[in-house]
């Protein structure tokens, strides 16, 4: 068993520098690497390019980095529910590459899996396809999209072990699995670091080979963005 365990978030973030490209898992605030994000704020690294479906909200998640102007460029599919994100984008302070959600995840998976490029129908005939090769297959039009390149991927999982094996929970899985191994270094934080051998090998979502560092996360807030309930009748 190859040991990926590091002591804490500080050790896990070793090597993160200004102007790097980072991938960050999560959808909205669900399944985001809270420990890594808070440490990026603390480290105060600047000029970051962040690949993440959303940019958090104004005062949580990646929104914290936006407020501190640590982010040079966001690569995301959705800006809604983050006024500061939209404001910085419209004012031109922030460079934003908007990518269709399915293309966004597949560009991560392509990096993870050694595919340089793939054809997808998403975005054909729109701004997204501008400057890209398009081609017809079986009577339908497709756009050639390329794998991402990133320095670090920050991943949040539910359970993990020192071998780097990961299990996600519910819809907190989202982009996290496809970002594992899609950057030079993948850092996974977990709610529960369990002993090696206690995870069923048949039920591991991401094998440890895709993870370089793993640590037990702390103080998860797991904020709910849109609490929606029904009344008991």
């Amino acid at each position: 068993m190859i040991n990926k365990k590091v002591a804490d978030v500080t050790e896990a973030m070793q090597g993160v520098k200004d102007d790097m490209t980072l991938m960050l898992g999560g959808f909205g605030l669900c399944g985001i690497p809270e420990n890594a994000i808070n440490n990026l704020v603390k480290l105060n690294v600047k000029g970051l390019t962040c690949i993440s479906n959303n940019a958090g909200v104004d005062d949580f998640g990646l929104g914290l980095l936006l407020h501190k102007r640590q982010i040079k460029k966001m690569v995301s599919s959705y800006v809604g529910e983050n006024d500061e994100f939209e404001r910085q984008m419209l004012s031109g302070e922030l460079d934003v590459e908007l990518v269709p959600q399915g293309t966004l995840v597949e560009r991560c998976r392509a990096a993870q899996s050694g595919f340089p490029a793939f054809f997808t129908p998403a975005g054909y005939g729109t701004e997204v396809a501008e400057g890209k090769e398009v081609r017809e297959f079986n009577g339908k039009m497709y756009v050639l999209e390329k794998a991402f390149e990133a320095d670090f991927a920050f991943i949040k999982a539910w359970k993990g072990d020192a071998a780097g094996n990961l299990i996600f929970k519910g819809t907190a899985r989202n982009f996290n699995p496809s970002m594992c191994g899609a950057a030079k270094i993948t850092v996974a934080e977990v709610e529960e670091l369990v002993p090696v051998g206690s995870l069923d090998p048949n039920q591991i979502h991401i094998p440890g080979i895709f993870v370089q560092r793993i640590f037990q996360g702390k103080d998860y807030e797991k904020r709910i963005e849109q609490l929606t309930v029904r009344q008991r009748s």
Partner: protein
Amino acid sequence: MLDKIGIAKRIAQEVQDGYYVNLGIGIPTLVANYVRDGIEVEFQSENGVLGMGPFPFEGEEDADLINAGKQTITTLPGASFFDSSLSFSMIRGQHVDLTILGAMEVSEEGDIANWKIPGKMVKGMGGAMDLVASAQNIIVAMMHTNKAGESKLLKKCSLPLTGVGCVKKIVTNLAVLEVTENGFKLLERAPGISVDEIKKATEGHLIVDGDIPEMVL
């Protein structure tokens, strides 16, 4: 004239037994509440869940269990969770039978715009570009006109597109329309709405063929 719930109720009639359905944010989300009894339908949300149930009871919400609108949800027996990659395999691979989403504009050729107003507003396309480029059955739920009273059913979209030639059917507060090779074909009128009112509110080419029935909700 229909309200948002009326639109959702009318669209719910389009949902067939055995359908896997993806619902967008807003009016589409309401459709789930009005699917008729006795048919089997599963709702997919592109953030990674199939078999969504109703919203949770207060106090039973789980931060790790949301839909694509970031709302807390529950799951039904037979549900499954999966990553974004497999989720878009379902969508792009045309395993989802019906996609219902909102729009700012739809053109008579079936183009749709719903993610950006240059210089003013950018929400982002989220999963919409994948959905509209892939789905074989797309229904748009929207108001017939915008807040300024201008038609949202146009000859050509003025806003940046989400997808081209993809919308099949539109349900608005005024009408049900099919997108055909020759333009918007009027299928049904909302209760109390005349064909003339629909004509006035439609900038794109409207095809009125014979008597147009009033919709039954």
